[in-house]
Every structure is written in C-alpha cells, then in structure tokens.
C-alpha cells in the first residue's frame, strides 16, 4: 500500500517475472482493466523494469505491478492472452526497450518503421 495522494496509485506490487501472468489473471478476475505497460531501463543497476498499471472501471483503485529482469536477458512472459489490450503495449515496449515478451503472437514494431532494429528508449541508445 502506498499513499495515493503522493504517488498516484494505491497498491504497489513487485513480482518475479514468472508471476506476471498470475498477477494479471488475479486482477482480471477482480474486474481490473489494463492501463498501460511501461518499460524502464535502469542502466545503473543493469536491469530492465516492466511496470503494469491497472485501474478498476468502477472503484477508485489503482494497482501497479512491477517486475525486473536483467538487461542481458530481458524476457518477460506476455499477458496478452489475459488482456488483449496488452498486445500493443507489449509490442511498443519491445520496440522501444528490446524487452522480449515470451509467447506474444506478433512482436513486431508498432510505432517505429517495420524494419527498425534499434531500441530508442534504452539509456545507451544513440541515433
């Protein structure tokens, strides 16, 4: 539990990458909707973070689920079978950070050109 007024969300959960799907299923059963999937590049810690934001369409309840993966092997299971809306978010996170979402049906660039191989939001990216 965190202070909503200070942070903007109610519940902050850190999970291991393999529990991401379980968390998503749990939240799905409780009627949550997926807000966003956010990637973050913690280059100092040599880690990548994936943040899943959930909101509830009827209650004032915001849940943030985080998971961290090593930068050398950024792989997270996909939740697009639970939330089809995650499909695009994960594609976007993949193209900007190079995080691979295992089991994603179509992990091709969404916003960048189709043949893009660079990951611009990585901190070590140079154009």
């Amino acid at each position, binding site marked *: 539990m965190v202070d909503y*007024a200070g942070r903007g969300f109610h519940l902050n959960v850190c999970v291991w990458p393999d529990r991401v799907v379980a968390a998503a299923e749990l939240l799905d059963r409780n009627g949550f909707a997926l807000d*966003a999937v956010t990637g973050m590049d913690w280059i100092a810690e040599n880690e990548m973070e994936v943040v899943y*934001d959930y909101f509830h369409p*009827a209650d004032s309840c915001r849940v943030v689920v985080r998971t961290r993966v090593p930068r050398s092997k950024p792989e997270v299971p996909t939740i697009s079978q639970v939330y*089809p809306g995650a499909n695009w978010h994960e594609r976007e996170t993949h193209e900007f950070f190079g995080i691979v979402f295992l089991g994603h049906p179509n992990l091709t660039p969404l916003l960048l050109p189709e043949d893009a191989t660079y990951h611009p*939001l990585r901190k070590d990216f140079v154009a």
Partner: protein
Amino acid sequence: MSAPEVIPASDKPCETFVLNVGPQHPATHGVLRLKLTMDGEYIMRAEPVCGYIHRMHEKMGENRTWAQFLPNTGRIDYLAAMAYNHAYVAAVERAAKIAVPPRAEYIRVITTELNRISSHLVWFGAFLLDLGGFTPLLYAFDDREQILDMLEAVTGSRLTYCYYRFGGVCNDVDADFIRGCRDFVARLRPRLKMYRTLVTDNIILRKRLEGIGFISQEMCRKYGATGPVIRGSGVAYDVRKIEPYSVYREFDFDIPTFPEGDCMARYLVRMEEMAQSLRIIEQAVDKLPDGPVLSSGVPRVLKPPAGDYCFAVEAARGRFLVRIVSDNKEIPYRVRLRTPCFSNLSLFEEATAGMMLPDALAVLGSLDLVIPDIDR
C-alpha cells in the same frame, strides 16, 4: 444484401483482397493506416498500422528539463492540449509537492473544460465529415472559434496552449474572459439543440450509427478503453469522478452513459458531455475565488525527489496517465505517457471484423482518434 449480415470468412484466398486505407486518407484523420483484408465490401480483418507520426515524446522527456517538456505535452493530443498539460503539470506537482492556489485550480478546470468542448466540437464535425455531412463541421468550427478566441486571449495561442505552470497557471484571467465564458455557455446551449435537430435526430444518421460497431463492457475492460468509448458501453467511468483531481469534487455534474455500446451511444455520450462541461464551466465561473494564480514556492531549478509518480486526468478522449520517474535530477529519468487513443484504437480490430467498409470508418470516427496521441 438487405441487412448488415456477417458472412462467414471464406478460406479461399482469391476472394479477398487487401485494401490500404491511409496513411493519407480522408477518413483516418491524419496518418493512420488501416490494412483491411476485404471480401467485397466486407472487412475480414482490419489491422491498424500506426507510427506514422511518432514524434518521440517519451524520449524527448528524458533529455530536457522538467519545465522544458511542458510544450511537448500540448502536442500529444493537440485538440485537448489543456488536459495533457494539466496531467503533466499535476504529476510534477505531486512529485515535487507543490501546492496550487485555488484560483489557479479553478482556472485550470474552466480552461480544460472549454478545451474539452472545443475538442468534442472538432470531433463532431470530423465525424460528420466521415459520414459525408460537411455543413455540421463548419457550424462546429464556428462555435469552436469562440472558444479559441477566449483561450487565445488568456493563453496567447490557439491550439498548443502551454498555459499551466508548476504551481498554477502563467496568466490570470480577466473579467472579459469570465464574461466570455458566460456568453459562450448561453450561446452553445441553443446551438447544441440545433445540432440535435440537424444531426442527431436525422434518420440517415441514426440508420448509419444505430447498432453499428458494438463494443461490449468486457471488451472495453480488456483493452483498457476509456473515455466516451467505455461510457458509450454503459460504464460510468470518468477519472473526474473516480479519482477526483484538481477541484472537480466541488462541481455538480453527471457522467453521461449510454448502454448500447454502438456508434450512436458514443456519439450521444460526447454530445451530452459538452452539455455537462457547460455546467461545470458555469459553476466554476460562479465560484471562482480570488487570489494568486501561481504558487510562490516553486524552486527555480526543479529536482523532484526520486521515485515514480502517476497522475491521471480525464482528457477529451479518455484516461490520460502520466508516469514520471525522477532520480532527483533536473531532467526526468523517464516520462511515460499512457494515452487514451492508443488503447481505444487497439480494440478496433476486434470491433470491426465482418463489417462493411463505411461502417468500419464510422466506428473509426466514433472512437475519436487523434493520431499523434496514439503514436506519441
């Protein structure tokens, strides 16, 4: 061919063809591309291809100061720039623990709601343009010009306002603006009635929109669709009510919902929202307190404490979430913009399978997309 019946997909490849709608196409309102696999006029699969106006807002957030990123937010959704400015400014205020004077909050609400109306007016016109009616567009723009005049007098710009500052707003409003607001409320109410006669009640429009493009509540939830889309499916989800921010708690307004989930419901939601925004403006103008409009306690060089902070607002198209991650430096570590159109468009593929081309474009119009909002 008497009803919009859904013909089962044929597995023979030679009966289908691929139609590229966009990136330059009158119906896509910018540079969206739809890859339609069609069987005659029926759409088998509609795959949106975006990124044609990706402007790297999130990357730009990482290499300019907290204040310098502000102009960018107005360009994500240029039709409702105020709400986006508001979300970013409020997120930074939350992070840096800056208090905002009440008068500034009221001004923010008034300008945001005015901007919401102007955005809905553009949507109204453009949607009708999609449906082949040109005249309502110009009527809507006529009304919109009144709003823009007022906002320009306050902010100095017509579209990309960049009006809010950390801790308030940059200029105070004057009596002319207040009078203008009242006049505008008085002007738009009969105009909305006129739109009702001219457009909403029109049998052609009703036939085109009713029962078209059904989006269920479950679908909205799964895709994270918000704003008029989810309200058009009957869910009273509005960030202004669910997570009240700014001073929205103090106003009496309704969340219009229509349970049908079709294009008409989304249309009616937006039309009704304009009326509700007028109500908010009316109340806000009446209650507008005196006082400063810019907090004095804002440090010259902003360095919010480390951590990540979210702020969500109800923009004209739905829930807009800003997540800022600070590492206590002058520039943000990461700015994440969760835009409503992105999620709203992602359900397009599922919503339009088996539809006819004009219906799919009506659905596209009813989602009210601003393409840079998707691509960022």
